[in-house]
């Protein structure tokens, strides 16, 4: 097995008196897509923030150096005063790589909108810009925190396709937090079903299907039933 991009052990994470995360060991291989599936408030976003380094205060350790990573938030979080182009190159201030930005704009399907301001974009388009901004720093791991939860079902499917396409093209691993069972199964190689608070990984579901996948594949339906059973046992539904 090749060197893991990410290998982290979170012994415990507490907010005040509540333990949110308990004994979680997470590994991510190159080019792998993994989903954390669980209800809102189960601590999966916290786990992602710990991995991203936005949350420093936890008990546990990083077992390997984390490769270069980028974060796509639940909301696009674009700077409203910057154009699409400037938002994508945000991490390099004024001297961003224009050709790379132009290529990313093309790849996320926003050709012609380089100079648009965020206020002119729809929710789905704004999230495309956010994904392009994440890719700009050429990460090996892209962390996504419920990235498509605010868009309608059709836009969501389009964005899921786009995400898989981009991950394939740039050879990056995805770690995705979601509460959408279908999304988790459709996108991932492994789905980690989270327990209710305090959260730990309740079950790991391997999705051994080649990409591109068919959303109607019977295996996906079987795995969905399995995941739902687990979630029910965890008293989250």
């Amino acid at each position, binding site marked *: 097995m090749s060197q893991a991009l990410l290998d982290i052990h979170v012994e415990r994470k507490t907010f005040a008196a509540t333990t949110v995360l308990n004994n979680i060991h997470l590994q991510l291989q190159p080019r792998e897509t993994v989903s954390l599936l669980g209800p809102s408030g189960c601590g999966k976003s916290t786990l992602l923030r710990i991995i*991203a380094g*936005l949350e420093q205060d936890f008990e546990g350790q990083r077992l390997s150096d984390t490769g270069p990573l*980028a*974060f796509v*938030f639940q*909301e696009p*979080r674009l*700077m*409203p*005063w*910057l154009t699409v182009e400037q938002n994508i190159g*945000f*991490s390099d*201030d004024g001297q961003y790589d224009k050709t790379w930005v132009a290529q990313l704009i*093309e*790849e*996320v*399907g*926003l*050709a*012609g*909108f380089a100079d648009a*301001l*965020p*206020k*002119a*974009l*729809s929710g*789905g*388009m704004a999230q*495309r810009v956010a994904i392009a901004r994440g890719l700009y*720093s050429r990460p090996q791991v892209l962390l996504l925190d419920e990235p498509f939860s605010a868009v309608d079902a059709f*836009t969501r499917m*389009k964005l899921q*396709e*786009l995400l898989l*396409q981009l991950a394939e093209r740039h050879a990056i691993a995805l770690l995705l937090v979601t509460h959408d069972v279908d999304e988790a199964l459709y996108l991932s190689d492994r789905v980690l079903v989270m327990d209710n608070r305090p959260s730990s990984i309740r079950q790991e579901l391997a999705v051994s299907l080649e990409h591109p996948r068919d959303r109607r594949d019977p295996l996906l339906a079987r795995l969905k039933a399995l995941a739902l059973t687990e979630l029910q046992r965890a008293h989250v539904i």
Partner: protein
Amino acid sequence: MSSNSNDLARKELSGALGLSTSGSTPPLNLARWRPRLKGLVLPALIIVVLEIIVRIGWLPSYQMPAPSEIALTLGDLAEGALWKHIGASLLRVLLGFAIGAGLALLFAAWVGLSREAEAYLEPTFAGLRSIPSLAWVPLLLLWLGIDETSKVVLIAIGAFFPVYLNGVAAIRNIDRKLVEVGDMYGFSRRRLVRRILLPAALPGLFTGLRSGMSLAWMFLVAAELIAATKGLGYLLSDGRETSRPDIVLAAIIVLAVLGKLSDGLLAGLEKRFLAWRDTFNGQGS
């Protein structure tokens, strides 16, 4: 595949812009001027009615001069001392505003960015703020005399608090989620300020600057009414002492015009720097 997603993005945009493409467009010139013309209706009406009322003798002209008379007085003044008064007042306002607003921005940035600074400074500023600013007048006169310094300092005090208050609020109201994007990129403190905090606080800062500017004019008049040998405030009190309401009204009109011009200047800058804002512009009817 990528052309496919292109199409989708276009569709999403045309949906977002759908409102602006539908509906008929009236002739451009008229459409642009109509709101401005609407704004002129009420003042024009007041002027005409006043002129008539004064002309037919319902109001004595030694108390309320006819608008045409005020216009003549204004014309006379414009050939003589008016420019000296305007120059003196303008210099005081600009100097006082620059000092007051400059210091206010400095302290607002300090208090807004540092909780430590807030703990040390905010109670003092809150205390100073509760002093009605005109209460400083006697003290300023005692300490600084009746020359330019005391006037400029009074104007600076007047301009300071709105700019400071709005500045601190602007910084503290910045969306934490945007700041987190900077954290994600490991931005240094300075870079965070330059790339996220300053632009995000700009709308609030402009609100502060504009109300600071209007207070600067207010305190200018206060300062000049109390003790001055030139300036628009002096013109006001001179008109009162010589029983010339036309001079008083002429000075008021000049003050209004200057106030509007200075605010318009700031509003223009605001519009230019804040074109990115996605805000409500009022409803059509």
